[in-house]
């Protein structure tokens, strides 16, 4: 008896019920704690099994070297199927077997549709693949990830070899640049920060799509997309490879949970789902930190890692401009003995690294130079610094020189927020301001805020700088501030008291006091800083909820603020804080109310009369004058 017939007899055909039972078993394993990798692998294996059966059945009687092969593409090719992912298939055929390819593909597709799969499919010869891969970015990418499932293996190998030579290895830099551009446009639609409070697991920044971008880049450049291979080849550090693996596993597990629960391809991690998953995964509410906030902190940690590592990886693999390549041959300029500077990058030569990076002040000086000249930190430093910073004793960051360095960075001018963000990324900022560590990725579970506490704080500094560069009343006041370092520091600290039981303004006040001590601020500076953090909500509350035309209200506010300097700083801080809540939150409405309170209070504090030259006032004065003249006359 022919072998094909025997298998046919023994096999029970796939039914919706049969498939459902297998899916339920995988869902049960997931619910019992199976990892993200285990579940996507099991789902891929299940799809493979079905396709092999279908192929065997439909192509029965044709010999193995039939000139027809069944190929998995895209995410299915990568063995990364989520519970409700589409299945992307290609029927690859030798030109002479078109008839057979058509009939087999039709039969298989019908069977898959009947089973309830969403299928993307194509019928192509090797020639078609080459032509379409060269012409279309999406096809080019999907074909790079092809995986042989069944049929003519020799035909598939021939396709792989030709495709690699004529498509994958051609115009790699251009390909990577285009994919990067495509991804940037996607950020525009799905969230350009990885600190969104309701992120799309696939498409928001730091989502799975970033991992895909890294894998596509790696495949195009070096023919492999496995993190371990990339680490072995020196293209990723061991630490980055491990962190990416962990992040991928986490994102997969959350996505599997979303799909299983919604029974469809649902990729948005909504507030409701966050609460449900946090509870289900055993996070416990504490008085100061909700379970959902703990869960999301993990999400932000992983998505930040994905977005950072991918960004650096892709940037490294992009073709450099002629000037960049030439300048790479030029000797790097040396600054202050330790720092080597090329046109736009600053680094420390490896021979000097031990000496330079085992000293807190030299590390800070690196950031200060980067800020002053607009350099970015070389990738190897970004990778090395977190470990270096962690290894140093606290004293390395609390010396007088270190404090002066940080205050100089905070004072600017220019690129203050950018520099602080770079320091935060490599975990240097939390060595200088320890309270910055616990708020990394700490979400604020309310409908008002859009970002995590650390991101909001850094953004607030950036908003201060940006508002200050405008032409508004706030900009003018910002321009007059003598201690911009203190304002920026207050913006950085104002919300660090969040995530604790006590009122965050009170916790913040203590943190500000500690930081003032660490940085050796003089009495005046320390008092200002502590005031600004303690009362960072006072001006907004007064302007929006009290009557600023009521003298008693203004007088009371003026007494609380005390000096014109404190008022000016609080005014800018309030606007920057509101603006950093989310795009469009600082409206003209709020600006106007804040501005009115500011001017009235300033009059009160400086004792200046009539600095407010309103038309109404002028009219009133004219009326009084006329009345007096009439009476006298």
């Amino acid at each position, binding site marked *: 008896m022919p072998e094909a017939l025997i298998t046919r007899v023994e096999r029970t055909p796939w039914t919706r019920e049969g498939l459902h039972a297998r899916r339920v078993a995988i869902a049960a394993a997931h619910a019992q704690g199976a990892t993200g990798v285990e579940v996507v692998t099991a789902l891929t294996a299940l799809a493979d099994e079905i396709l092999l059966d279908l192929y065997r059945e439909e192509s029965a009687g044709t010999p193995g070297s039939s000139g027809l092969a069944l190929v998995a593409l895209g995410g299915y090719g990568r063995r990364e199927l989520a519970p409700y992912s589409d299945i992307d298939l290609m029927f690859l055929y030798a030109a002479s077997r078109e008839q057979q390819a058509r009939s087999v593909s039709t039969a298989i597709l019908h069977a898959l549709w009947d089973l309830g799969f969403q299928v993307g499919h194509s019928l192509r010869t090797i020639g078609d693949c080459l032509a379409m891969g060269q012409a279309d970015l999406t096809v080019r990418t999907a074909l790079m990830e092809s995986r042989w499932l069944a049929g003519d293996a020799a035909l598939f190998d021939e396709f792989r070899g030709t495709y690699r030579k004529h498509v994958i290895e051609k115009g790699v830099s251009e390909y990577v640049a285009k994919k990067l551009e495509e991804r940037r446009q996607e950020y525009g639609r799905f969230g350009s920060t990885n600190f969104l409070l309701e992120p799309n697991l696939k498409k928001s920044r730091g989502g799975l799509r970033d991992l895909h971008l890294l894998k596509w880049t790696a495949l195009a450049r070096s023919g492999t997309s496995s993190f371990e291979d990339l680490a072995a080849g020196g293209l990723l550090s061991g630490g980055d490879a491990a962190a990416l693996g962990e992040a991928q596993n986490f994102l997969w597990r959350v996505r599997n949970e979303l799909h299983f629960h919604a029974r469809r391809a649902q990729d948005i991690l909504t507030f409701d789902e966050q609460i449900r998953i946090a509870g289900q995964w055993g996070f416990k509410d504490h008085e100061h930190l909700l379970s959902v906030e703990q869960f999301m902190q993990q999400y932000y940690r992983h998505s930040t890692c994905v977005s950072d590592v991918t960004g650096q990886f892709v940037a490294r693999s992009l073709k450099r401009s002629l000037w960049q390549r030439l300048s790479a041959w030029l000797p790097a300029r040396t600054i202050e003995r330790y720092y080597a500077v090329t046109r736009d990058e600053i680094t420390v030569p490896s021979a000097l690294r031990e000496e330079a990076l085992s000293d807190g002040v030299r590390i800070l000086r690196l950031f200060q130079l980067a800020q002053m000249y607009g350099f970015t930190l070389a990738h190897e430093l970004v990778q090395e610094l977190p470990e270096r910073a962690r290894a140093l004793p606290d004293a390395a960051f609390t010396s007088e020189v270190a404090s002066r360095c940080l205050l100089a960075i905070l004072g600017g001018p220019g690129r203050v927020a950018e520099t602080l963000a770079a320091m935060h990324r490599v975990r240097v900022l939390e060595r200088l301001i320890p309270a910055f560590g616990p708020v990394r990725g700490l979400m604020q579970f309310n409908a008002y805020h859009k970002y995590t506490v650390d991101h909001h704080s850094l953004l607030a500094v950036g908003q201060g700088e940006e508002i200050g560069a405008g032409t*508004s*009343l706030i900009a*003018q*006041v910002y321009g007059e501030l003598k201690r911009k370092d203190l304002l920026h520091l207050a913006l950085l600290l104002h919300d660090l008291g969040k995530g604790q039981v006590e009122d965050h303004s009170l916790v913040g006040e203590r943190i500000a006091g500690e930081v003032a001590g660490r940085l050796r601020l003089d009495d005046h500076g320390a008092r200002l800083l502590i005031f600004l953090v303690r009362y960072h909500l006072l001006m907004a509350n007064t302007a*929006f*909820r*009290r*009557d*600023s*035309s009521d003298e008693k209200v203004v007088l009371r506010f003026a007494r609380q603020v005390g000096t014109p300097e404190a008022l000016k700083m609080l005014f800018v801080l309030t606007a920057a804080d509101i603006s950093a809540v989310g795009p469009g939150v600082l*409206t*003209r*409405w*709020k600006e*106007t*109310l804040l*501005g*009115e309170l500011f*001017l009235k209070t*300033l009059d009160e504090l400086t004792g200046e009369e009539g*600095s*407010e*030259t*309103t*038309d*109404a006032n002028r009219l009133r004065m004219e009326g009084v004058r006329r009345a007096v003249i009439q009476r006298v006359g």
Partner: protein
Amino acid sequence: MKKIEAIIKPFKLEEVKDALTELGVYGMTVSEVRGFGRQKGHKEAYRGTEYTIEFVPKTKIEVVVSDTLADKVVETIIKTAKTGSIGDGKIFVHDLKDVVRIRTGETGDRAL
């Protein structure tokens, strides 16, 4: 049914909201608005630079109530939002044809 739209001073919002809630008003829509009436805008000067405030910031509240409650609502807004000085705002009362609760399809007073 009546739709009552009131433009009030921003700091009066809490007070008006509390008073209306006490009266049995179940929902309200609030927005930040800017505009001018007889109060007009004005100019502010800071260190020689003039900043024109053409539109004064106000808060708009919208409530929809049954005919029987309408007068009481207007009266309450007047009582709570009044300071007596210029710019206290205005109240607009509209006749309303219908209300539909989207979730259940209920209409009229039942949907309030």
